């Protein structure tokens, strides 16, 4: 298995290289340049021109690409023109916010999906099962932005149960318990939205896995030995069915990343997705390129992670 991991990791290098090249060329094609925003009636146009030359704006694209990629290797993605700070510092801050949101979302996905999937499988073809299937179907079909808006409208504005933007209330001291809980409180609604959208696959997998397990020999043996059905579900079936869903972690992460752009924009949550949209609007190239690289990298990592977990928990699908 380690051979596969090493090989997959090595394959990621040319993939990242091609991605970086495509992204760099695309970003260079974008109209306007970051200095256009600096022009005011008072500024001297020649001063802007000087800035452009200084920043290497007129160098051939491969010179610029080489400069960018060698710096990027050392963790230097340049300066953000909008925020006037290093891109790595800016993204670092935002990535941390996105990380907390994703972490809570993943926890909620599993907390929701495992009991629902188990119940649906156990109470197969009952009203409960049908309702759970309907729920998983709606969560699969509904677009992220529609669910986010409806949740924000209902729980944020109508019932006013949750804050409608930001990460933490002003005036709370960082490091205190109150600060921590306030942060979680701000995270709950967006994380819940993401979690509901991420449950479909796990519920359906668990349901069919449990229906399948019911007819397996080990369950029949346990039944004939007189073990109560509740214990069989809790011990035998649960253990056999739940382990493989760990492999969904990779897909869940990739899915969350894709949805983060909508969720963060709608909930006004300052993460990487929200930063991406605002950077596109302000033509902050260095931030745009760095963010797409990071998302691409995380997506590759997510699919690698899925394969590794899958081969550990289920030897039948071992990759080689």
């Amino acid at each position, binding site marked *: 298995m380690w051979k596969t991991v090493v090989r997959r990791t090595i394959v990621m290098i040319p*993939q990242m290289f*091609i*991605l970086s090249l495509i*992204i760099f060329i*695309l*970003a260079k*094609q*974008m*109209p306007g340049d970051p200095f256009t925003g600096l022009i005011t009636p008072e500024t001297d146009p020649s001063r802007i021109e000087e800035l452009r030359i200084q920043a290497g704006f007129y160098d051939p694209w491969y010179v610029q690409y080489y400069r960018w990629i060698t710096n990027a290797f050392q963790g230097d993605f340049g300066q953000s023109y909008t925020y006037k700070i290093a891109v790595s510092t800016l993204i670092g801050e935002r990535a941390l916010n996105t990380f907390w949101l994703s972490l809570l979302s993943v926890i909620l996905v599993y907390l929701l999906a495992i009991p629902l999937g188990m119940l649906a499988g156990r109470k197969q073809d009952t009203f409960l099962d049908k309702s759970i299937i309907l729920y998983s*179907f*709606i969560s*699969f*079909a*509904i*677009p*992220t*932005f*529609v669910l986010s*808006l*409806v949740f*924000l*409208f209902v729980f944020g*504005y109508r019932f006013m149960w949750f804050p*409608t933007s930001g990460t933490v209330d002003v005036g709370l001291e960082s490091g205190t318990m109150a600060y921590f809980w306030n942060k979680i409180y701000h995270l709950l609604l967006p994380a819940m939205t993401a979690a509901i959208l991420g449950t479909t696959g796990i519920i359906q997998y668990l349901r069919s896995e449990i229906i399948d397990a019911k007819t397996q020999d080990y369950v029949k043996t346990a039944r004939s030995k007189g073990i109560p059905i509740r214990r069989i579900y809790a011990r035998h079936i649960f253990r056999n069915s739940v382990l493989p869903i760990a492999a969904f972690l990779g897909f869940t992460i990739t899915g969350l*990343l*894709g949805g983060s*752009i*909508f969720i963060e*924009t*709608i909930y006004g949550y300052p993460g990487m997705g929200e930063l*991406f*949209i605002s950077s*596109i609007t302000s033509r902050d190239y260095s931030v*745009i390129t760095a*963010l*797409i690289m990071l*998302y*691409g990298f995380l*997506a*590759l990592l997510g*699919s690698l992670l899925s394969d590794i977990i899958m081969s550990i928990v289920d030897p039948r699908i071992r990759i080689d």
Partner: protein
Amino acid sequence: MTQQTYETNMMENSPPTGIQVVLREFKKDKVAMFSFFGVTIIMLTIFIAAWMLNQEEVLKINLLERYTEPGVNGYILGADEAGRDVLGQLIIGAKNSLLIAIWVTVIANIIGIAMGIIMGYYSGIVDNVMMRIIDFIITLPTLMIFIVLVSIIPEYGVLELVIIISAFQWIGIARLIRSKALSEGRRDYVSASKTMGTSDIAIMFKGLLPNLSSILIVEFTLSLAGNIGIETGLSFLGFGLPPSTPSLGTLVSYARNPLVLADKWWVWLPASLLILVLMLGINYIGQAFRRAADAKQRLG
């Protein structure tokens, strides 16, 4: 002579699927039946109403009627920030969104099916090289690349948007068709046609393709729902259709203004619900098709 033998061969090999199986599946599944009629009626209504509506009249700015509530002054669904009729915009927007989704689905399916069959039929090196390319594209952060592409193109409209989305949507279809074509391409009738000297193109598109038709219908329906989601999502973020062309996504995007979201629900909620209803309905139809295509999953 060759062609005739080939066709008889085909008939003996083709599975007993067909319109009857599909009909039976829909009869067994009331929700799918309901979805089918519901979606058909909604689509027909949208296209006929959009054809009868005067688009310029609907989009004319009328500041005195700003945020008129539903039911007042003859506005069935009220008016938006610029005093434009929401119902009219909903119809025109839905027509635009549906047309784009249909176009993307058609283009992406044609490319995906052709690529998938070529890969599955030839396998070997052609397949290997193309699979590596596809594996790479599949891991790209597509939504971000759409957004960058849309901001690069200076004059973009419906056509450009359709091309950009289709350029990425064929990938998944190609992968699916490839795996089916790989197993189908090993069947006896294919080898028989080969020895008879039937050209590769004829085998691929006259022999293999009809046998994959049940999966193609499933894929077509499900990708239609997905493409409605992509177009409306991009338009919602402001990177889909230009602001002058209404789309369901543009209507929903008015809700990015907290004031509209909180108090003027009639501007964005109907479009959101229409997106949800369309996507749910089309998905239900697709699932019924899927069960009809796969004997193991059939209800009856």
